[in-house]
């Protein structure tokens, strides 16, 4: 299997889109392109299972390396493990659904789809690269598409939100950049040759003083991407101003880039500092979880509601990573996947409601279940998933995080676990209230009675994403089996 295909498919799709003129063909080409990408990533994950079953124990599979700037040891080195593969499948799924959801977009179709594909290209590159420089390149690649997608196709105070998002994420990138430059510089001092390569940096033992600085820089930097408290403010504004597909991508994938970075770079490469300093992020994550949940309760706008609940849910990711237990890490990864699919479906459903009712205010909707049973059911499933109903992905992920965090004894860890668990109650309050007032009861406006239910593309999106949620809820062992080897690798490095 060639990982470069993951770059080539979107790149060729992008170039084809740029050459095309007719709107219809542009949509079809981007759908086909992202469909092929989805299929390819599924093929990848199946062959990954096979290789692991056949006894391959390398940390990364399907490795490949292209020399880029040799004198700076910048190589496009690729490799995937279970964690990156599951993220790649998640990205492909969300992008495919995002394109389906945007089928009815009216203005500047070509530019819109081109930017979405470019955005996804950044995510794929980020997940497959094992060279920190290239990884950073792909991380930064997404800044401009995000800005333009929100600025041009967004709604509400889009200019403000777009600028805020771009600057805050750039702030995160700057911290990460300093951290990565530190890796490069100190690997030269303590390891002989300066390198950006993750596989070589693992074997390097940096002194604890250096580790501390790099850990704080990179974890905080990636934390901004996961909307870690107190750097979460870009998320609610950005998510709610963005067009549906961009919201799906932002909350579904973009926030996961941060979680992946916290795990793969901060924790994996700097184990001693992680042991010593992760309490800081446990506190911040607990605040994010609780604050996010309470802030969600106060929201009247559905998109803001989901955006704040994302802050809360992504807090679980950071909590799981910072706990540094096997179950905690596993839970964090499961939560990334679960939240990615769930929030994408949530934003998609909100987009569908908005297209029909032209409002996102909870108190203006009512009784929508009757005219819109299909969309309504999707809304209910995703809501229940968000509040952690067993049988859906949210339960599996959050329960695993709790198991992992309860393994750590100590007052701080106990309090953090209890706080996080308590937030579930708050989640139940806002989810049930939102579901109740939008879907049940009498129809609030009489024109709502004649609304048309989901079209073919919307049904496809709901079906795809919902199957992801249910599959993880009922067959979590499939995911755990996929991730187990890599979680062990990381844990073995952390607890030497």
């Amino acid at each position, binding site marked *: 299997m060639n990982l470069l295909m993951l770059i080539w498919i979107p790149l060729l799709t992008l170039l084809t889109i740029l050459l095309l003129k007719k709107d219809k063909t542009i949509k079809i080409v981007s759908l086909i392109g992202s469909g092929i990408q989805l299929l390819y990533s599924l093929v990848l994950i199946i062959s990954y299972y096979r290789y692991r079953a056949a006894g391959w124990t390398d940390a990364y599979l399907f490795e490949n390396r292209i020399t880029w700037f040799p004198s*700076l040891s910048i190589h496009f080195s690729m490799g995937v493990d279970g964690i990156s593969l599951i993220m790649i499948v998640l990205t492909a799924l969300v992008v495919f659904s995002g394109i389906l959801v945007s089928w009815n977009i009216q203005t500047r179709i070509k530019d819109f789809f081109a930017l979405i594909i470019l955005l996804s290209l950044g995510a794929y590159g980020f997940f497959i690269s094992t060279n920190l420089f290239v990884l950073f390149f792909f991380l930064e690649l997404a800044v401009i598409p995000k800005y333009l997608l929100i*600025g041009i196709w967004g709604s509400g105070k889009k200019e403000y939100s777009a600028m805020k998002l771009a600057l805050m994420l750039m702030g995160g990138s700057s911290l990460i950049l300093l951290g990565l430059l530190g890796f490069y510089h100190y690997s030269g001092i303590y390891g002989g040759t300066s390198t950006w390569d993750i596989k070589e940096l693992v074997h390097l033992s940096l002194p604890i003083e250096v580790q501390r600085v790099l850990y704080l820089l990179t974890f905080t930097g990636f934390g901004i991407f996961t909307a870690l408290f107190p750097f979460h403010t870009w998320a609610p504004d950005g998510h709610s101003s963005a067009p549906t597909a961009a919201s799906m991508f932002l909350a579904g994938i973009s926030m996961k880039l941060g979680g992946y970075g916290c795990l793969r770079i901060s924790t994996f490469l700097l184990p001693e500092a992680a042991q010593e300093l992760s309490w800081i992020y446990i506190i911040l994550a607990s605040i994010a979880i609780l604050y996010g949940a309470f802030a969600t309760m106060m929201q009247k706008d559905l998109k803001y509601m989901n955006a704040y609940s994302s802050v809360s849910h992504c807090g679980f990711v950071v909590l799981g990573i910072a706990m540094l237990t096997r179950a905690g890490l596993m839970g964090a990864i499961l939560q990334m996947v679960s939240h990615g699919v769930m929030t994408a479906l949530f934003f998609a459903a909100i987009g569908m409601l908005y297209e029909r009712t032209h409002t996102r205010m909870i108190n203006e909707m009512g009784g929508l279940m009757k005219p819109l049973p299909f969309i309504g059911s999707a809304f209910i499933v995703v809501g229940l998933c968000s509040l952690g109903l067993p049988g859906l992905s949210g339960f599996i992920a959050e329960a695993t995080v709790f198991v992992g965090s309860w393994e750590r004894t100590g007052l701080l860890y106990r309090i953090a676990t209890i706080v996080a668990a308590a937030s579930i109650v708050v989640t139940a309050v806002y989810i049930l209230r939102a579901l109740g007032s939008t879907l049940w009861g009498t129809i609030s406006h009489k024109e709502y009675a004649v609304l048309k239910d989901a079209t073919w593309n919307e049904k496809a999106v709901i079906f795809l994403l919902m199957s992801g949620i249910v599959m993880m809820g009922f067959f979590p062992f499939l995911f755990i089996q996929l991730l187990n080897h890599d979680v062990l690798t990381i844990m073995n490095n952390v607890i030497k």
Partner: protein
Amino acid sequence: MDFTLLRFEWVLIGIIVVLLVGKLTDIDKKPYFIPLINLLLVVNILLGFVPMPHGEAFGNFFRTNSLIAFEKNILNIALLLISVMGNEWLKKTTVQAEHYILLLTSMLGIFLMLSSTHILPFYLGLEMSTIPLAALANFEMSSQKSSEAGIKLILSSAFSTAIMLFGISLLYGVSGSLYFNDLANAMQSQPLHLAAFIFFISGVFFKMSVVPFHLWTADVYEGAPTAVTNYLASISKAAIVFVLFNVLFKIFGHLQEGWTLIVSLLAILSMTIGNLFALRQENIKRLLAFSSISQVGYILVAYIGFSPHSLGAVFYFIIVYLLSNITAFGVVSIVESTTGRVTLDAYKGLYHRFPTYALFMAIALFSLAGIPPTAGFFGKLFLLTAGIQPMYYWVLVVAAINLILSLYNYLRIVRIMFIENGENRIESISTNRLILVTMATCVLLILAFSFFPQVYQWGIAWYGFVR
């Protein structure tokens, strides 16, 4: 003596003579003048690539080597690009021949400066490259701002030259020679030597518009015709950046511990002040002027490293910078020649009316901001990588903060072009095919330049020439 050593200079002198003679026959009134001059500049570039021997001339005053030839080739190409971008403006002026004569004279000065191994030709070259610019800045005959720019440039340049000359006299005093080699050997960490360094480098930094020697920049950039501003911001700056290697690494190489602190402080000041002043500019030429000040700050970071990587990184960055800056000013020039305005609100809704130009501008600006996939990302990161030096980590911290500030500045223009939908839209825009093709080439190069890692390697390989 082998006269082929001076081939770059001979070609330039040849073109200047053609223009001078042509001026007698009113060549610049002819319709074929602009194509002719562009053709001559193409010939100029091509002759630069003819392989010729390297060596020294004029009793060791002058030298060429692969490094210098490469630098001159880059500047030659940039000159052609700038000339094409300014075609629309040129058509409206009455001083076309003079414009090129002065421009090429300034180039000749730059070439002399690049090749010098002695302070005398260095000084001669520096002055020869600046004085014609004062006349050029004044070329918008009817505009008061343009005259102001000319006067400001000549006065401030004379001032800085005086300071520099004082530094040169101190240098001669401490070493008894003006050859770069002798100077380098005579330098020691003594107060007098440091004083000589400070006076001398002030003159150089002045031309490079490093803070606190930047006060002339915004006014001159604003007042000068855009074609000239383009030259000032691109070629003139790049030339000084190249020369700075001779100055810092060669002449003052032994004073490295002394100048690292000064250079890093000035780098920080330039980045920060350039970006902060750009925040509130409403005139796009002033905004780009301040942005170029902050870019110079980034370039200075690379010098702190004092290694072959500095040369590689600066080489790489300067090419990207030239391409991006020339494209950005090219769009400014197009918009100015159709609307007559250089304020930011002239760009409102450019994307909705003329998406191609908006896209070109956006890519150029992203490259300046250091955002991938443009080559500016690589350039900026290489500069920072080259500048990592124990005890000087704080420079990188400031540079990282400035990345956010500069992103805001460039996104402001992008927002106005792409998101805002003003009433005073541009109704029509010149569709000069040649300009469009040139810009498209520049933009493609900006996007594709990350696939030319060789430039970085050459920089490293040629490090021996500057030490």
